């Protein structure tokens, strides 16, 4: 089960949805918050990513509401989606642990 690693926007979208079902605008603001303002998703990028994630079965539609006479559709993480996020976190964690350890060693000898 070794797939390509997730790109950052996709990873952040999955992270945002891990907190619960959200709609498009909610995901955008959440991603900006998580990344500390660094990553600002626009609607085109967000929906292209959601489309791909939905086709792969990692996210699905949770519910639809009408707010201010506009359609608002909520998305949620599926179990395979949560697993994928977990796997990605594990991969990054093991990478960062090794990198941090080596940097500390580097600092000591420098």
């Amino acid at each position: 089960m070794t797939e390509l690693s997730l790109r950052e926007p996709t990873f952040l979208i999955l992270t945002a949805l891990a907190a619960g079902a959200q709609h498009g605008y909610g995901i955008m603001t959440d991603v900006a918050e998580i990344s500390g303002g660094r990553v600002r998703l626009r609607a085109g990028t967000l929906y292209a990513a959601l489309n791909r994630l939905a086709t792969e079965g990692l996210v699905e539609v949770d519910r639809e509401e009408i707010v201010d006479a506009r359609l608002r559709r909520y998305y949620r993480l599926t179990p395979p989606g949560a697993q994928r996020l977990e796997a990605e976190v594990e991969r990054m964690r093991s990478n960062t642990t090794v990198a941090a350890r080596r940097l500390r060693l580097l600092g000591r000898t420098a």
Partner: protein
Amino acid sequence: MDDHFRTSDADRDRAAALLRDHFAAGHLTPEELDARVAAALNAKTFGGLRCVLADLPVPAPVLQYVSRMPPEAGRLERGYRRLLFFYPARYRRVHEEEMLAVLVTAAPEGKRRPGIAEAADLIWGALRVRCQPSHNSGEPAWRDALAVMSVILPVIMLVVFAVQETRISPSAPLWVLKEVAAPSALVALVLLRLRRLATLAAVAMFLWVAFRSGDSTLLWATWNAHLLVPLSLEIVALAASPGPRRGLQILTWKHGALVVIAALAVSTAWYPVGLIVIAVIGAAMALASSLGRWLLMLLAIAAIPAWPFFTAFTLGPPLEIYLPYGWGFIGPVLPYGLGFIGPAYLLPAALLAVFAMAARRESRRSFQFPPAS
């Protein structure tokens, strides 16, 4: 909610379009489609429309009454709608309202027009959505592609044959009719969804073409490659796929018109125009989905006898590769030495390999995870 609000013609038409999308995805039988479209076109309230779509998989937009927007927001919204036009129609039917809501909410107060960065982002998003595989009915893309092939290949052969025969003997319409009788019969069988009869007819045509001279030498076979290759591919398509029934589920009248136009472009003598038409249609198909890419590949295989023409007209002038003297449209497939054969078939084969890899990669990606139920 607004179940009791009355529907407009536009709402009913949208519901009917959504039902056809679900039919194309394989969620409804033809009888169910007819029944539900009739019910949708007669529905007087939104509750009625929702009943018709109730058990079909999401996402499908909730059809709701949308109040009039103030004129300022209207201009921004119209700007966004124009940009959303780049998205595929099927995608827009499901997501347009939702994306508009997000775009308008995210726009700061007093914004009048979409920004350049926003426009670029939306157009780029549209391109990516077009390249992504859509929700499948569960059938692997190559089987669906074969099913579509089983329908359009006989149509292409009929058009090309009819044009050719008319050009050879333009003042003998009865002769033309006699010559196109067999391809027309095959087209009729396919359109009537008679898979087994169509397979038998295709096999019969294949055998007749292969053995009609009395002696079946290899040379005779190559002289008839332009008939034998497509016929054998048609037999495979009919046998190894769900068949014309599934193919006709996927195809629409727009596709049918495109196929006929492409076939006419190929069979007239205006080679640059024909090639351009084929290239544009092929690019659109390839971008649309992995199904499109498989289809393009299969059609390229059916057109193997025409590969030397393709190479000659694209690479020929710069590389000084020209068709050997006496090479007609129905010329032999294996003649005149490797110096010409190599390049003539290499370029299309290379393109075919690229498409095969891209199509297989997309097919495998979309089946890595089971779709959420």
